[in-house]
């Protein structure tokens, strides 16, 4: 759906400060019909990458290529993309419904189509009750929900979300994650940046990880976890004192099992210890 080829972005602040390179020869691919997480610490270059993808800023070097199925020129391509920026701030004096009409009309939808989409998504996003209120009365979570709603109004093929889950309570995060999975099942590609690694691990099949403006990892979530399997196993057994747990190195695993089997204990499970994506990312940091 989207390919970055050798993207470099340098910001030239002014005469008195050194130029700052935010992205260094970054190349990656967002495969169609997948949920791809975009990870990295603050300042790693995630938002800069998304701004380049959306043509808000131009790269110093490299190319951005969209899947030809999205269209040939930028207007065709953008008509099939839904984008939600980080910490969205919308027109405070428009109501949620007026805002939906505004963005819907810009997406070449007519009033009837917009009404159908509002009806379809506003209940799903639990924002239907506030659609006729001015946006300046919305909470942060409600802003995120109305933002997500207008992102999906025109039924985009490719959805790009910049920190969509930040600032939401656990219920809000779960709702939005469920919707992301739901729209992916409809064949849509979702590419979203996040600080919350566990969310990415939970719903993404693939992950792109930036570190200090460079690509650190690109691939499937399962693969990175497999690569980071620890050389230890956990043996759980039951004795007179209850369930016990023993962490042993994989080399010593068989010896320990033999030792336990001669004692009067019942072995419950033997598991290879796996690192979570979060642990892997923290180790990288």
């Amino acid at each position, binding site marked *: 759906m989207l390919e970055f080829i050798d993207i470099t972005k340098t910001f030239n602040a002014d005469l008195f400060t050194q130029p700052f390179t935010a992205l260094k020869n970054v190349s990656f691919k967002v495969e169609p019909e997948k949920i791809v997480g975009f990870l990295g610490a603050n300042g790693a270059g995630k938002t800069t990458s998304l701004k380049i993808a959306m043509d808000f800023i131009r790269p110093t070097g490299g190319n951005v290529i969209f899947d030809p199925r999205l269209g040939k020129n930028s*207007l065709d391509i953008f008509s099939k993309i839904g984008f939600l920026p980080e910490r969205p*701030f919308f027109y*405070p004096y*428009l109501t949620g419904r007026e805002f939906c009409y*505004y*963005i819907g009309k*810009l997406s070449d939808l007519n009033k009837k189509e917009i009404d159908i989409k509002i009806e379809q998504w506003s209940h799903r996003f639990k924002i239907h009750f506030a659609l006729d209120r*001015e946006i300046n009365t919305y909470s942060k979570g409600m802003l995120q929900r109305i933002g997500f709603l207008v992102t999906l109004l025109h039924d985009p093929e490719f959805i790009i979300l910049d920190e969509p889950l930040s600032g939401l309570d656990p219920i809000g995060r779960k709702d939005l994650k469920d919707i992301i999975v739901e729209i992916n099942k409809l064949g849509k590609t979702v590419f979203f940046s996040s600080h919350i690694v566990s969310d990415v691990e939970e719903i993404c099949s693939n992950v792109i990880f930036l570190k200090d403006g460079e690509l650190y990892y690109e691939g499937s979530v399962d693969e990175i976890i497999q690569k980071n399997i620890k050389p230890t196993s956990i043996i759980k057994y039951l004795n007179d004192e209850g369930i016990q747990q023993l962490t042993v190195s994989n080399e010593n695993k068989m010896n320990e099992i033999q030792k336990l089997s001669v004692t009067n204990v019942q072995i419950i499970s033997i598991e290879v210890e796996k690192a979570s994506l979060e642990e892997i990312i923290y180790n990288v940091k």
Partner: protein
Amino acid sequence: MLNRKVLNKIYTIAFYTSKEVIKSKVLLNTLILGFGLLVVTFIAYSFTYGEPSRVALDFGLGTLSLSSVAIAIFMGVGLLSDEIQNRTVYIIISRPVPRYGFILGRLIGLSCVLVINILILSLITLPLYFFIGGVYESLILWTILYIVIESILMLIIVSFFSLLTTKVLSVILSIVVYIVGHAIDGAKILNFVAERPILEKVLDFYHYVLPGFYKLNLKDHLLYKQNISIDYLTSNLMYGVIYGAALTMMSIFIFSKKNLD
């Protein structure tokens, strides 16, 4: 470039820009200003001998002009820069909307608000003028039209500056351009300038590059009943329109190249 789809989008952006500004209660200030204008005009009328209707017209058109320019500057300075700062522009231009469509829509939207402001104040000023004995002259309508052009030109100037520098500096620069643009014609005929060729050249340069707002000021001609040819009126009108169009093209060029970060 400007096909029907894009024109529809420009209209949509303009419509919702006007709606947003009107709902922000800017026009409530206009109504309060209009009420104040009525009171001040009545007081001035009560203390004036000779031609009180002219005084009413002077107050009315002066308020009309200044309030429109003030709205143009203070609302116009955030017209594009606030959109970038608040990232609302990302939502708009991530839709199939060309950047020039966005800038034109925003400018047209706020221009409509300026026109509504001028209409409201005109509807307060003119009936009062006729009520106290003023007579209709076509120059009154020309003057109001020129005020519309002047305030839209100020809007384009301030939004142009806001693409290049900070909001505060944009406001200061726009006010300076407005004042100098009105004073330049008078300054040129001063002896002080006539005796200094370099200064005269600087003023000539200003004439060619920066807007001559004095050309869009018909109030003195109207109040002192000076005759103006239709050629003068149309050529100055064209000057304002062409200057505004050229500056809008420059704003579009800058905005299309600008990194929106």
